[in-house]
């Protein structure tokens, strides 16, 4: 499952990132907290496929579709 598919008010565990993501970007995502095993919570969904709002490691981020589609969730644990 992709992060983008996470419905509002639901939590999940971050899994791998897509191999399509460049290494540098993947590293940055990790530095921002998108690391395997971390819990992520969807705070809001915007209308018209606008950015989603998630909280992760005590920080709230807005993420657009193109990037959150490339972050996978660990379905086994969620």
């Amino acid at each position: 499952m992709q992060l983008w598919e996470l419905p509002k008010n639901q939590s999940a565990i971050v899994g791998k990132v897509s191999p399509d993501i460049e290494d540098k970007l993947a590293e940055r995502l990790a530095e921002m907290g998108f690391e395997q095993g971390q819990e992520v919570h969807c705070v809001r969904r915007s209308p018209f496929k606008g950015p989603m709002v998630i909280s992760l490691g005590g920080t709230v981020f807005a993420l657009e579709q193109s990037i959150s589609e490339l972050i996978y969730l660990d379905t086994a644990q969620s």
Partner: protein
Amino acid sequence: MTVINSSNSNILLIGKPNSGKSLLFNQLTGLRQKVANYPGVTVDIKRGKFNEHELIDLPGTYSLHSLSQDEAIAIEHIQNSIADNDTRVVVCVLDATRLERSLVLGLQVQALAKQHNKAVVFALNLIDEVRRFNHQIDLHAFEKELGSPIVALSAKKLDGLHEFTELLKQAAETPENYLVNNIDSDSSNELIRSRELAKRFGMNLDVVLKDQNRIDNFMLNSVFGGLAFLAIMFVLFQSIFTLATPLMDGVEVAIGALGSQITQFMGEGTATDFVQDALFGGVGSFLVFVPQIMILTLIIGLLEDSGYLARAALMCHRPLSYFGLSGRSFIPYLSGHACAIPAIMAARTIESPHKRLMTMLTIPLMSCSARLPVYALLIAVLIPSDSYWLGLFNLQGVAFFGLYFFGIVMALIVSLILNKLTKVDLDKSDMPFILELPSYRLPHWKPLFQKVLNSAHQFIKRAAPIIFMVSVIIWVLGYFPSGASLDDSWLGMLGQWIEPIFAPLGLDWRYGVAILMSFLAREVFVGSLGTLFGISDAEENLSSLADKIQADGLTLGAGVGLVLFYVVALQCVATVATLKGETGKAKIAWGIFLAYGSLAYLIAFLANQILN
């Protein structure tokens, strides 16, 4: 081990975005760099004095590994500053409410500083927010784990600031005693270490986020959030008019009274004419607009400090993407309503180089505060002050809003067209849109108040000398030869030459002179017209400039055309210079100058044709 050079004296402030570096910088240096509650406020290096040392405030970043080219410039600068021989102490500023995120960068910086044998101290900022939730941090243990001294402080409430100042003095005095001495400096596990440290020393974040989410449930709601956004924008632009009007009337009355006192005292003569026309007509008619600038700054300042702007950027991301812009374009656009120059600089935080360029090129269409006097004057001429729309909104206020709106719509259209023309392949150097949403906070009153006063000061300081000079020149050229009417004056003779350019817009040479002069600074328009109408006004009464223009008879079409000309035209040399600096291309800057000038002329021409 290299010996620390004793001539070095720089102290660096480094930390993640929105961790309070600039506020701390201001407290330590007594300067007033911009502080606001959203990530990416500081985009340039700022320097100030701390004791005999130089304190350097750097742009915030999440990591020392850069992604995009734009980011690389900023990050390389941070890396080079740490390595620099002149650097004596590196201060890692941590946000105590977001410990894990700030430690990732903090530990990277510490490791790099260790490599270069630099002294490191940690500032655990925003401690007031943590204490509000009764969370205690064991600083002794924390310090031991970090291998560098750490002081908890609040740059806002000033707790711990004294202790930190002492530590910083000590470290700058004897940096060799403050070198990093942690056992483990394996850079690959900074992520793991910051998580562990945050778990051990940080607070339970759910409580903080609960507050924030409650407000966001409303502010980001699909229906109410959108309405709230529109309402906030409407109030912003409306209050520039409604709140400022009584204040402006007050200033106008005061200037008028002063003028008649002085001229009565001076008696009749050329000197009196000069004081009346050039000083009170020129400079005075522009001072009236200072309250509007202050109110604009106040409201933008309130929004900046509240934490709302990041939410507005998020909500705008989708609609702005349609025009080839980013949600991050929103904040530069908004601050462009005060002044285009810092706004163009602020566009550095936009994730994609192409979207950044589009934003920079269209920022000049935002109605900056230099245009306020022109709008206010022409609206007062064209629309009676007591007419209401739907019996509720003052029509002058609505017209004000309309002009701002027109500028924004033009910016979106221009951006859309430029995007269609320049077929860019949205390459990989684009960062995706990821934006941290800061906690909501009550505005910090003292700096806000200073910001407002400063805006008035800057406005006067920047424009008043130019307006004064132009007014004097215009007055001299327009007054002599002595006894001649304005049309037969030296200026009148020059005016005949340029009249053909402005005739298609329905404007006579006096407006032509004022428009040309306002390429020095837009506000000059009002001052120049003030002087010109002062000279030609035979009765020498000190009635307002708007009344004089009205009595002189400016047609509706020409008036509307003129005000729309001012929305679109890029009459600001400093903006062109900034565009040149930020894009690196003089061609782009002057190209956009010519393009907006031609477009403005065309629009004014059409308005004059259609409405008359």
